[in-house]
C-alpha cells in the first residue's frame, strides 16, 4: 500500500488553494459574516463550476464520482481559507448520503447539488443544532434509526447563537412521517453511522487546515513583531508554543488521512479511526487557536484583525459532529466492547 496522496489529488488541492486565495481572502470572509446569508456572493457557483461542489456526486448526475480520500486535501484548504460555504454538509456528506439513498431523492437532488443550485442541511446525532438551515433547500434529519428528507416548508428553524458568523446554527423542529422517511431499520442505522463518520472526518480535515492557517499566521507574526529589540519569535516562550502547535497538527494530519482511507475501503476500524482523527484534529485546532491568540497578543482579540475568523471556525467545528470528548468516549466503547 502506498499511503500518500496522488499527484492528481495534489493538483486538486493546488487548484482549490489558488482559487480560494483570490476569491476567499479574509476580508471577503469577514464581509460574509456581516451579510444576510453568511456566504460570499457568487463563490458557491464558482466552486460548482470548478467541480468541487459535485465532487462526490456520481458522474451520471453531473458530478465527478470521487470519494472521501479526494476530499481530505480539499477540505483542508477550505479550512485554511475559513471558507464560509456549506461544502462540508452539502457536498462532502449529503451528496454521498443521497447517492446511497438512491431513488427519487438522488435523481432530484444530486444534479442540483452538482450544479451548485441546492444546499442541504443535516441534522444528525450527536449535533444538537443544524448548520445553514436558513439557506437549505433540503433537510436530511435523523430520528432514531431513521433518516427523513424534508423541504424547508416542513421544518421550523430557529436561529441559535453561533460563535462563527458564517456557520450559522439553528434548532430545527419537525415531525417525522411515513412520507418523509428515506431510510429505516438496519439500513438506516448503517447509513447514519457512515454519514456521521463522513461528517466528523470532514470536520477534522477542515480543522487541520484551520490549525495550519493559524500557525502559519502566528509564525509570520512572530518573525515580524519586535519586542525588547528583537523579533518575538526569538524568545523561547513563544517559539516553544509554536513548535508544540506544529506537533499537534503533525499528529492529527496523518490520522485524518488514515481515517479517510479506512472509510473509503470500509475497514472494520473505520469509526474508531474517524473518532481518533476528529479528537486529535479538534485538539490541534483548539491548541493552535490558543497559541495564535497568545502569540498575537492584544491584536489577536480585535474584531478588525482576521485571526478570529479562523479561531471561531475552529471552535465551531471542534464542537460539530461530536467534540473531542464525545469521540474519545466513542473510541473507548469501540475498543472495549
Amino acid at each position: 500500500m502506498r499511503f500518500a496522496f496522488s499527484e492528481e489529488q495534489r493538483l486538486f488541492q493546488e487548484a482549490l488553494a489558488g482559487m480560494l486565495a483570490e476569491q476567499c481572502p479574509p476580508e471577503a470572509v469577514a464581509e460574509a459574516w456581516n451579510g444576510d446569508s453568511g456566504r460570499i456572493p457568487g463563490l458557491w457557483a464558482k466552486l460548482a463550476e470548478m467541480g468541487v461542489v459535485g465532487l462526490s456526486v456520481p458522474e451520471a448526475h453531473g458530478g465527478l464520482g470521487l470519494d472521501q480520500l479526494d476530499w481530505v486535501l480539499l477540505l483542508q484548504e477550505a479550512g485554511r481559507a475559513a471558507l464560509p460555504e456549506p461544502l462540508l454538509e452539502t457536498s462532502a456528506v449529503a451528496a454521498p448520503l443521497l447517492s446511497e439513498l438512491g431513488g427519487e431523492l438522488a435523481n432530484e437532488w444530486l444534479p442540483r447539488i452538482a450544479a451548485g443550485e441546492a444546499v442541504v442541511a443535516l441534522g444528525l446525532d450527536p449535533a444538537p443544532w443544524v448548520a445553514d438551515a436558513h439557506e437549505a433547500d433540503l433537510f436530511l434529519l435523523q430520528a432514531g434509526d431513521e433518516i427523513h428528507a424534508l423541504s424547508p416548508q416542513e421544518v421550523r428553524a430557529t436561529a441559535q447563537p453561533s460563535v462563527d458568523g458564517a456557520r450559522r446554527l439553528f434548532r430545527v423542529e419537525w415531525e417525522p412521517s411515513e412520507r418523509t422517511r428515506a431510510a429505516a431499520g438496519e439500513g438506516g442505522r448503517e447509513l447514519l453511522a457512515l454519514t456521521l463518520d463522513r461528517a466528523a472526518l470532514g470536520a477534522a480535515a477542515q480543522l487541520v487546515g484551520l490549525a495550519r492557517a493559524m500557525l502559519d499566521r502566528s509564525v509570520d507574526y512572530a518573525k515580524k513583531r519586535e519586542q525588547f529589540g528583537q523579533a518575538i519569535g526569538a524568545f523561547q516562550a513563544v517559539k516553544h508554543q509554536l513548535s508544540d502547535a506544529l506537533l499537534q497538527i503533525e499528529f492529527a494530519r496523518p490520522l485524518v488521512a488514515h481515517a479517510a482511507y479506512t472509510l473509503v475501503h470500509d475497514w472494520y476500524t473505520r469509526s474508531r479511526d474517524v473518532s481518533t482523527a476528529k479528537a486529535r484534529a479538534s485538539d490541534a485546532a483548539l491548541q493552535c487557536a490558543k497559541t495564535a491568540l497568545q502569540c498575537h497578543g492584544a491584536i489577536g482579540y480585535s474584531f478588525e484583525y482576521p485571526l478570529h475568523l479562523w479561531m471561531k471556525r475552529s471552535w465551531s467545528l471542534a464542537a460539530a459532529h461530536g467534540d473531542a470528548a464525545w469521540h474519545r468516549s466513542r473510541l473507548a466503547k469501540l475498543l472495549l466492547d
Partner: protein
Amino acid sequence: MKILVCLKQVPHKDARLDIAGHGTWIDDANLKFEINDYDNYALEAALRIKDAGEAEVIVATIGPDRVVQSLRTALGMGADRAVHVKDEALEGSDSLGVAKSLAAIAAQESPDLILTGLMSDDANYGLTGPMLAELSGLPHATGIVSCEHAGESITVERELEGGALEVVELPLPALVTVQTGMNEVRYASLKGIMQAKKKPLETKSVADLGLQASDVAPKVTIEKIYMPPKGEGAEILQGSAAEVSQQLVTKIKELGLL
C-alpha cells in the same frame, strides 16, 4: 488554427525570496512555484480563441521536472497538449537561449499564433517574446490588452504610456505578448485536471530541437543580486499638521530645492 502558448514557471507570488549562497539568484530549494501571471493571461486568451471555434492550443515551457506541474495545470485549464524542454544546457540560460529553444519548437509546430506573457514575474526583462518573434520571422505586438481573431489576421490593442491604446492588425502567423488584466483567467476545473492526465505531454532535449548546447549558452550572466542597502538619515518631523508642514518647507528651502 494552431496556437502555441509559451509559459514560464516562476516562484509563487507569496513566496519569501532569499538570495542563494552563490549570490547570483534566489534560493529556490523550498519555494512553491506557479505559472507566471502574464502567461496565465496569454493562455486564457488562447483558450478563448479555442472556445470560439476550432483551435488546438499547445503549451510549452523550459525547465526542470517541477515545471511539469505548471504544464499539467495548463492542460487542466483546457490546453490540448504540452511540450516540456528539459536539458542541462538550458540551466542558467538567458532570454536569447530561451527564445532560441522556443523558436525551435515553433519551427517544429508551425503555429498560426504564438502567445506569451509580456514579461516574467521573476526576471522582468520582457525580452523573450520579441526575440522569439524575430528568430521566427514573425510580426509581433507587445503588451496587448485585447485580441480579436478574424480569418487570416488578428487585431489587437496595445497599451501605451499614459493609458493610450494603439490598435494593430497583424497577419497570421504572428506573435503577441500579453499584458495582465486582459481577461479573467479561468481556474483549472477538477474534471479538467483529471482529463489532463490523458493529454500528450512531450519532453524534449536541446538536441531534439535541432540545437546544440552552445546555441543556448547564456550570453548574459548575472554577476550579483542583492537587496538595496537601507537609507540612513531619515528624520521624522513632529508636531501638528500645520507645524510639520512649516518644518517641511523650511527643510526644503535649506536644501536649496525651492
